[in-house]
């Protein structure tokens, strides 16, 4: 394999990691505030459908993006209404959102487009197209750095760059602002935040809104940047891999990013290796390679290397003392 081959694998890893990064950041913000978010998958799927549907109808990828964000935030608010306002079980609410999304997206797309649960294929100008960063062509001949810049850094769609920015942004928001400090405190010891006179409810709702926005962008990436339209179940477990990456990165932005890139790289590598026999084991079906992220997460959770400690108040609704 040449240098360019490696660059192309990393390039596709980055694209495959994008929805993982956005969803994992969403999960991180939500879980840092004490709300378990199994519903990432559903929000991703809902966002993907909303983006494709609105982009088809209006012809604008941007309106699609906003619709995806709106849809995903709406699902987040249902989650909040159930488990913040009504102190319901967060895991059940998350499962409900996932099943709801996988049913509702097909029902809505059949009703709107009657194409068996798909949306019509989007034209080039109804999607987010690759952005060529300045100087990519001019620098292409510079050895090593040129192709690196042209193939890997430049030429991605907008959501990929948003994902890249989202990681430092989430880090800054949670660890460098007053809001972030409060948000994390709500996930560790809500009673303390409450006695400081702040609203636990409103803080947790805001965390869920942020999570909704991020998942919506991820959804728009799937259907209007990476793909060209919505296909049923197109999230294909990515929300769950993001959840795994978030745990694997121990609820911290930079390690979570690393985990997402690793999982993206595994998928890209598996796609490329498909059909070529490996030494010792022979030809491995891609599905078997794709379970490695899950196995890695289970091993980590088992505490065999490192220890993943979740936020202390994770999963428990806050009840004010009377």
């Amino acid at each position: 394999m040449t240098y360019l081959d490696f660059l192309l694998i990393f390039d596709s890893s980055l694209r495959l990691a994008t929805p993982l990064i956005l969803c994992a950041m969403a999960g991180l913000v939500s879980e840092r505030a004490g709300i378990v978010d199994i519903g990432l998958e559903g929000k991703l799927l809902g966002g993907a459908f909303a983006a494709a549907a609105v982009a088809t109808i209006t012809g604008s990828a941007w309106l699609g993006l906003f619709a995806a964000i709106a849809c995903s935030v709406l699902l987040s608010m249902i989650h909040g209404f159930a488990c913040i306002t009504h102190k319901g079980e967060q895991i059940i609410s998350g499962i409900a959102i996932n099943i709801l999304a996988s049913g509702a997206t097909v029902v809505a797309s059949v009703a709107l487009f009657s194409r068996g649960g798909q949306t019509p294929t989007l034209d080039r100008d109804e999607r987010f197209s690759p952005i060529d960063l300045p100087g990519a062509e001019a620098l292409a001949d510079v050895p090593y750095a040129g192709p690196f810049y042209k193939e890997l850094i430049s030429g991605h769609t907008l959501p990929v760059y948003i994902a890249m920015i989202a990681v430092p942004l989430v880090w800054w928001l949670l660890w460098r602002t007053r809001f972030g400090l409060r948000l994390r405190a709500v996930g560790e010891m809500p009673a303390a935040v409450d006695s400081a006179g702040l609203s636990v409810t409103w803080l947790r709702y805001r965390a869920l809104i942020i999570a909704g926005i991020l998942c919506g962008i991820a959804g728009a990436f799937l259907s209007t940047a990476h793909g060209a339209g919505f296909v049923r179940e197109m999230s294909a477990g990515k929300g769950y891999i993001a959840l795994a990456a978030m745990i694997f990165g121990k609820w911290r932005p930079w390690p979570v990013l690393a985990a997402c890139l690793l999982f993206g790289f595994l998928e890209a590598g598996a796609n490329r290796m498909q059909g070529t026999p490996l030494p010792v084991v022979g030809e491995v079906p891609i599905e078997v390679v794709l379970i490695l992220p899950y196995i890695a997460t289970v091993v980590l959770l088992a505490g065999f290397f490192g220890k993943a400690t979740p936020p202390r108040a994770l999963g428990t609704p806050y009840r004010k003392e009377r």
Partner: protein
Amino acid sequence: MTRLPAWVEYLLIPLMNLALAFAVTAIIVLIIGESPIEALSVLINGAFVYEGALGYTLYYTTSLIFTGLAVAVAFHARLFNIGGEGQAYLGGLGALLVALALQDWLPGLLMIPLCILGAAAFGALWALIPGWLQAYRGSHIVITTIMFNFIGAGIMVGLLSGSLMRPGQSNPESYLFEDSARMPQLHTLLSEVGIEIGRSPLNLSIIFAALACIGVWLLIWRTRWGYALRAMGESEPAAHYAGVPVPRMIVTAMCISGGLAGLMAINTVMGDQGKVTLQFPAGFGFTGIAVALMGRSHPFGIVLAAFLFGALLQGGTELDFEFKTITREMVLLIQGLIILFSGALSLMFVPWMERRFARKVSE
């Protein structure tokens, strides 16, 4: 805090939650531009009236009783087993391996019980590992069971497109079960004694489902073990101080739960398809969560809820034929709404009801 009368808590509130889920569905059907009443009548006809429809409904009910009981047993110990899907999938593998290993020299009378054991054992094994990790390593059972669903699916794809794939097939699916390892279907059994019913995959597994219901009821409410399990669900520290070996209980509870989920395979794999196909659990493991929630984790409630969902699933297939704009995925939507309203929002009406009943008492 006022206690609500039992009929309000166990009948009125669940029915109100269910009604809310159906009301939202009706609004969605109206928005799509069809008549909810017409959709409902198509559902009911599809689930009960057409020839063989009831058989299909009961066939789905059987699968859902197994996965519903699986969720319920774990839930009594406050363990969320959302790995039913993967456990059922692996259960199919267990039945298949037993059938393939023994088919040449074992008669049906012994074959079927051994295949059932194989299904239960593999389902249990697939829950044992998450259970063990929860009990002894503190890994969260929800996350590990989700991961195990995917790991199981990956392994099954590998096997079904690899060493267990039947030669000459284009799609990954397993070798066929010999007739001796197939669960007899009801319509063939009945036609032998002269009763003709519509063709459906309904098979003897339904009897095993009924036995499983009775078994779970006895286990949870009539044994020491069940008492300890429920005590653990109420308060783990209290159970620990009372001498309950909590970690071991977690592992056994998960094994029983996984074993029940694995039994779903005897219905679909041995009772209907006669082979293990890709993704054969088809979401029934997840629907089991809804069934257990609606059935309040009690076998009696689970049978009712499984029947409701079985009817919805069967009736839903009819939607595809009768409407242009509504498909069977509508049932998935209803299912999501039911989990939302009867599960996550189950407490929504409680404060309001308590106020109403408190006023009555004070009057």
